[in-house]
């Protein structure tokens, strides 16, 4: 007798799902979705806060940077190299470069005499040092040319170009408004 009563509850016919199975599943799905959703505020709180985002732009004056000189300014806390290139430096940089991430020099500058790059090695985030006609990363030995293109690894790609625009011939604004 007892066996006969138990049997219909045990059978799992896909065409006739048991209500209990459905309720268990639904409860499980709702609960786990809720639990996952509840973690979002905590995960999101670890992203840059609004005051960090508010520092999204920096203004830099180009006055006083002589040809051949590099000035480092701060943007979002990162070093930005502003390089006033000489005629011969521009001339040698023309074309796609000798490195393994070829890119036209003209695509990397807004005005050929001013190179603006993020001064952070694309390998692991160290600040490259200016050495003669190249940038050299002291951490793992990457080398970049006068267009910020990588010549020697382990850096995987060229130095990044930030968003910037000339607001007048002697001033640039780096970054986009983010808030």
């Amino acid at each position, binding site marked *: 007798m007892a066996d006969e009563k138990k049997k219909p509850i045990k059978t799992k016919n896909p065409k006739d799902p048991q209500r209990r199975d459905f309720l268990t599943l639904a409860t499980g799905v709702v609960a786990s979705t809720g639990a996952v959703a509840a973690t979002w505020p905590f995960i999101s709180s670890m*992203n840059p806060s609004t005051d960090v985002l508010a520092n999204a732009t920096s203004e830099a004056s180009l006055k006083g940077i002589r040809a051949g000189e590099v000035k480092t300014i701060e943007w979002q806390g990162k070093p930005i190299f502003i390089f006033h290139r000489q005629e011969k430096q521009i001339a040698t940089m023309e074309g796609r470069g000798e490195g393994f991430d070829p890119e036209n020099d003209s695509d990397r500058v807004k005005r050929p005499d001013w190179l603006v790059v993020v001064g952070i090695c694309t*390998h692991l*985030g160290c600040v*490259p040092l200016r050495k003669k006609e190249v940038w050299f990363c*002291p*951490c793992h030995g990457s080398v970049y040319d006068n267009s910020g293109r990588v010549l020697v690894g*382990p850096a995987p790609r060229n130095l990044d170009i930030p968003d910037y625009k000339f607001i007048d011939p002697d001033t640039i604004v780096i970054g986009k408004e983010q808030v």
Partner: protein
Amino acid sequence: MKKVLRWIDQRFPLTSFIKHELTEYPTPRNLSYWWNFGSLAGIVLMIQIVSGIFLAMHYKADATLAFDSVEHIMRNVNYGWLIRYLHSTGATAFFVVIYIHMLRTLYYGSYRSPREIMWWTGQGLLVLLMATAFMGYLLPWGQMSYWGAQVITSLFGAMPFFGDELVTWLRGDFIVGDATLTRFFALHYLLPFIIVAAVFIHLVALHSVKSSNPSGINLADKDNIPFHPYFTVKDLFGLCIFLVIFSYFVFYKPNLFIMAENYVPANPMQTPAHIVPEWYFLPFYAILRSVPDLLGGVIAMGLSVMIFAAMPFLDRSKIPGGSRYRPFHRFMFYAFVIDIMVLAYVGAAAPEGFVIPLGQIATFFYFASFAILPFASKIEEKWLIKRGLPAEVEAMMQSEEAQKADRRQRKQDRRKTKRKDQ
């Protein structure tokens, strides 16, 4: 006193617990001093937690104050120098003890059945320890702290698709900054307590499978002796020796493990000319640098830490124990230790000249020694059996075979009875 104890025992199994897990806990009588390092690690953990809590009473986790607050501890706080040097030297001591503990496990084959869970919880503890040490190293906010954190958080940028977003999320800023410092402090305070919890899991596993021993053979009951007083004394003696050496470094050479560059406040605009991680990360750092591709390097480094977990599967020999009865296992062990030292040298040297190929060869050898282990252990086993084993080892292997056959037989029987039922 007895009355109080009886009152407690009626409500909580205090006496029986102490008897079962400490005083009468059966321990192999042939344990050597290499078996001291587990309890030593526990003591160092306590030193770190206590000194760390007292440091936190004076430390300020703020990018503008952190460096000065550490100097304040060193100069103004009563015995602040001592507490700080205990903590910084303790980090080094922790890794020394843990690495010896791991090498002992590898040498004597203690990771093998039935101690896999011990080995894996140990692996988890190693990762937790590394994370805690890495985050703690940022807190003094010196140049090495800063650029170490910058480089290691950048590693996550190698993740395809959302690498950059992940790095920004980890740092809470576009570079390592105040947000990074405060969250590292919070986690550096939290993780040790998670480590304590994980240590308890490690110990529960230990007390279920019991200690391994230098012979590598499961001992008969008559070869076990109670933990107290035999091993409480042995552990305490080892602890005294440890504390003598530890005190020497705390009081006479505290700056041996703190790089001079770290007494320069963090400067996000300038990377020091030569950045080196702490000595305990050097071999892994060398592996990272030896792979020319960034993502490949990150994967290789992660694998070099986690690959130890595979040891119970890789070692396929039927000969019980570790190097005691296995000459080739012993040879590979020493070759591996030398290889780690070569990698440490490579990690500390500037990446130029012969250091680069040396690092690549050592990296190759590191992974190769894991890769050939399944085959080497099998070949060695056949050779050893052909040559003839000590009687005790043979008896042990036979009893293990018999147990296995017995289990197989019972499984088949169960299957048969099941079939009959249907």
